[in-house]
């Protein structure tokens, strides 16, 4: 019941590898790490979700917030490596239409 965030940086490209669960308890931690990255113009933020076992609307909310921030600050946000489960809640809520989601086989997108 926790979330691990592993951050790698090459120039202005930041890749966040998430492992664990994103819910009301762990979401603030994700926000704290991800949001500042989207606030700098030109940053490319790639979030790898292949290690996410559980996510609910609190997690979706964090990504919506980060997307808004990236639009406002001219950075970009890209999600990749979604498992079928995680993809499903993005689809149900219609967020697949507004988010930049890289399709690919679970966990093999690298």
């Amino acid at each position, binding site marked *: 019941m926790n979330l691990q965030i592993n951050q790698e940086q090459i120039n202005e490209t930041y890749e966040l590898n998430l492992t664990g669960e994103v*819910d*009301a308890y762990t979401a603030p931690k994700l926000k704290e790490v991800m949001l500042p990255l989207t606030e700098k113009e030109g940053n490319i933020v790639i979030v790898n979700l292949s290690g996410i076992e*559980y996510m*609910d*609307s*609190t997690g979706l909310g964090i990504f*919506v917030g980060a997307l808004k921030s990236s639009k406002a600050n001219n950075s970009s946000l890209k999600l990749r490596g979604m498992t079928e489960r995680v993809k499903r809640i993005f689809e149900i809520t219609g967020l697949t*239409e*507004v988010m930049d989601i890289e399709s690919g086989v679970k966990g093999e997108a690298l």
Partner: protein
Amino acid sequence: MRTASDYIEMKVPAKPDYVGVVRLTISGLANRMGFAFDEIEDIKIAVSEAVTNVVNHAYSDTEEKGQVRIGCNIFDDRMEITVVDQGKSFDVESISKNLGPVDGKSVDQLHEGGLGLFLIDTLMDKVEISSEAGVVVMMTKYLHRDEVEEHVDRISPAPSQ
């Protein structure tokens, strides 16, 4: 059909720390009942959403955090989960009107919250919300026995009294 059911109840502080504990407990019960993997995941999300709503909204920041009560009725053919708080109630009608996916909305129109109740409604078979004294969310998921191998060690219904 037998109407007897087993009843399990939990009461946890309305803090984010306990949402996962509730989710895991309900997941264990659903697993015991023989729900399929995907259905268990749906139930986990729905319960977490309901409890998270209480954590976020039911008690104002100034007053001491209250409790959230989670009741789970296990029937032969379904699981009924009730999430209750004693915090301030909200206007269910006005919220229900705003429920829905983000279809056609621009990024500016999206807001960070508000998807929780929509997910509950979508993932569960039946959802009832009342908000007279605090908020009660009652949600039901049916067990589709025909499609699922019955667990040998399934919980037997409580003997009727």
